[in-house]
């Protein structure tokens, strides 16, 4: 007999049950989750053999030197292929994950530090960003993830900092180029202290000046396309950010400023709110947010500790259906449940049709995490249509009543079970399970 606790463990914290997973989690749901945080897992096999962000960035820079047409062709051909490979590899990694809580954390932090293929150059960089800047840090320190994300070629390109030049720097005064404040603003507003974090336009400007020089270049071995601090474009002089003076110190100014932002109390509250929204409810109780914020501050932004703390939050287990699945969560959980991944190319198409193509968030704020942003008159129909399409391909592998018991059985009422048992065909029965409100929640 499965307890509701196991249902929450595999759905709220995990990515939906694969065959046998509910049973696996049911003995000790909390222990099953905590165990996923302890081991340092090997890189998922689906992610092996993909090019690094620096390699793709270097390729882009080479093509740009050949001319704009070459760069366009690279994006339209090679980078589009790269994107599809990355998107498929990432989605299959989620579908096959045996540490689904860890994969959920990867997706959460990847969305927090959004880079998006809405900027076409990112087609070659967005997948690498998640693999290189996010994945290794999900149980590390927030500060380290913040610095890794800020320095990744994908972020430097997406939010334009690679090209930002101090007007009074050696290169700036010579060529009349200047500042771009995009990355500085979004780090403050989205990645750290939040829009109510108390910064002003002057702070945005000053932080932009601090970050000049955080750009791209060659490593000591001569490899291009990497993060490199470029002294020649760094704005000289002291800067003041959020009341703190940063004496001229080149790259160290940025490191010090990001460290201070990571430790800022407003950052703790901002992260705690997003975390609680993801794991508790769209509008989480203030007490939960303040407990998680306190833990974030006390642990100096230890993300493993934060993840353990949310497991230990009773409110996260109280209502197992409080959250609505995003399209990505819906597709991944449906395919985990049916054990049917289908044609990899169609996977990305499915996600696009349902409104959430991988690495394609509409803005640097990332994908929304509240029900009304995902559930509307058209989206419920599209999800139901997709559920039927999957059911038609999976009908021979599953009996509706057993499928019901293995998925939403622990939380659905008898009427739902009866409706599914009474469906005229197996495909319709399976489709009703997948399209049910219970299955679309977590």
């Amino acid at each position, binding site marked *: 007999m499965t307890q509701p606790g196991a249902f929450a463990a595999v759905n709220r914290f995990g990515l939906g049950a694969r065959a046998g997973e509910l049973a696996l989690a049911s003995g000790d749901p909390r222990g099953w989750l905590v165990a996923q945080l302890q081991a340092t897992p090997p890189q998922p096999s689906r992610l092996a053999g993909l090019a690094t962000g620096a390699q793709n960035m270097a390729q882009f820079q080479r093509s740009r030197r050949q001319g704009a047409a070459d760069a366009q062709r690279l994006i339209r051909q090679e980078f589009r292929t790269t994107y599809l490979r990355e998107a498929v590899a990432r989605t299959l990694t989620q579908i096959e994950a045996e540490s689904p809580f860890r994969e959920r954390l990867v997706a959460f932090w990847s969305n927090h530090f959004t880079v998006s293929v*809405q900027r076409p150059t990112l087609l070659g960089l967005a997948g690498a960003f998640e693999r290189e800047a996010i994945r290794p840090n999900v149980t590390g320190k927030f500060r380290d993830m913040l610095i890794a994300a800020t320095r990744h070629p994908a972020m430097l390109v997406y*939010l*334009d900092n690679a*090209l*930002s*030049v101090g*007007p009074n720097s050696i290169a*700036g005064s010579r060529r009349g*180029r*200047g*500042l*771009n*404040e*995009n990355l500085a*603003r979004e780090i403050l*507003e989205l990645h750290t202290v939040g*829009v109510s974090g108390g910064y002003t*336009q002057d702070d*945005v400007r000053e932080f932009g000046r601090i970050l000049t020089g955080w750009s791209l270049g060659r490593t000591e071995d001569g490899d291009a396309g990497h993060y490199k601090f470029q002294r020649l474009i760094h704005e000289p002089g002291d800067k003041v950010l959020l009341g703190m003076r940063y004496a001229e110190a080149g790259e160290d100014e940025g490191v010090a400023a990001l460290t201070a932002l990571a430790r800022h109390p407003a950052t703790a509250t901002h992260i705690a709110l997003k975390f609680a929204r993801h794991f508790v409810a769209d509008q989480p109780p203030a007490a939960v947010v303040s407990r998680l914020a306190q833990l974030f501050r006390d642990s100096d932004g230890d993300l493993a500790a934060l993840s353990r703390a949310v497991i230990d939050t009773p409110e996260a287990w109280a209502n197992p259906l409080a959250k*609505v699945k995003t399209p990505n969560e819906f597709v991944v959980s449906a395919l985990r449940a049916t054990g049917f991944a289908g044609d990899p190319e169609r996977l990305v*198409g499915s996600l*696009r*049709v*349902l*409104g959430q193509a991988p690495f394609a968030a*509409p*803005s640097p*704020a990332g994908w929304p995490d509240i*029900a*009304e*942003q*995902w*559930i*509307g*008159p*058209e*989206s*419920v*129909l*599209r999800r*139901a*249509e*997709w559920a*039927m*399409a999957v059911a038609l391909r999976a009908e021979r592998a599953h009996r509706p009543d057993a499928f019901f018991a293995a998925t939403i059985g622990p939380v659905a*009422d008898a009427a*739902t079970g009866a*409706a599914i048992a009474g*469906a005229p065909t197996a495909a*319709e029965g399976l*489709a*009703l399970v997948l*399209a*049910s*409100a219970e299955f*679309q*929640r977590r």
Partner: protein
Amino acid sequence: MHPLAPTHALSRRRALRQIGAGASLAALWLLPARLAYAATDRRLVVIVLRGALDGLAAVPAYADPDYRRQRGALALAEPSEADGALDLDGYFGLHPALRSLHEMYRVGELLVVHAVATPYRSRSHFDGQDLLENGTAAPRGASDGWLNRALALLGPSDRRLGLAVGQTVPLLLRGSTPVGSYAPQTMAELESDFLARLAALYRRDAIFAAAIDEGIKAQAMSDEVLGEEKRMGRETLRGPAAIRAVAAKVGKLLAAPDGARVAVIEAGGWDTHAQQGTINGRLAVGLASLAGALAALKEGLGPSWRQATIAVVTEFGRTVAINGTGGTDHGTAGIAFLLGGAVDGGRVVGQWPGLAQGRLYEGRDLAPTSDLRAVLKGILAEHLGLPRDAIEREVFPGSAGVQPMRGLIRA
């Protein structure tokens, strides 16, 4: 200084027309309230450009003495020069990618409001959009959208007068008045029997129940109006063709005799911090796509274009000066376009603050001289015929000090 002034916008002829409109409104008060504001034949489409359109790029003040110096490499050539701005009134021009809008301006169907902004004065896209849609003076100042509140004033109707375009309902249209929806259909449509069974399962889940009920109604409506045309290939889900294809369908849905009357279309990609470009580049591509969508919408509307107003709005403008990377950063005032057969166009309205350094807001942005709510209130009053006190009280609460702009709509 440009001679535009509020008086410029209001001719004697138009003033007389307004007196007439006022009189007929007064007469309507005598009717039973239930009938007073029955569904309108007017059409209103709000196009939300997310990401902050650079108003000075779309509508350059090419004759402003400081224009060229301030904009640097982003300045467009004069109308008389090759690839120059398309002249509007000898002072302002249109970006060359908006050529089809230039023709609308010439025939009096495009009106530009310049130096306009919402009351929002910080520079966050997300707060700026929230406030643009919620209709108050503060981010999260309301949890429903001003356009939904306006729909409520159209009076009771069993029709869905509002139309959300896309998979979910944007904040602008969210609220207590149910709205219809349209999104391209690319998968096999479900049997009505299956949908009925699913809807029955959703009864105990308020969010899903409401969504599927509206979805089933919307599907019936788009089946009736569009028939087989509603199906689209997956290729139409992205790229510039997508918004054009969708806009054409929205036009038809609005044109249907018992169709929706108010629709919202969203378009992203305006956050041009780098390599914004002039006649070519990121922004030109976006503007051309917008022009294509507007043309498709006009075509879809057919004869209903005569009764239509299309308002193109964005959360804020961008910096006047070019930034260090060939783009512009988040700013304050920008432009709004009003288009359609109902619009009394062929004019650029607003008060021009000038581009001299000392005239800029916080030394960097185009200074706001018009409140976007004044424009929207004017449209709701003159185009949809909503009563002014209700607009003030329900739609844009706390905006009593913002006088509705008059004369935007042909009588």
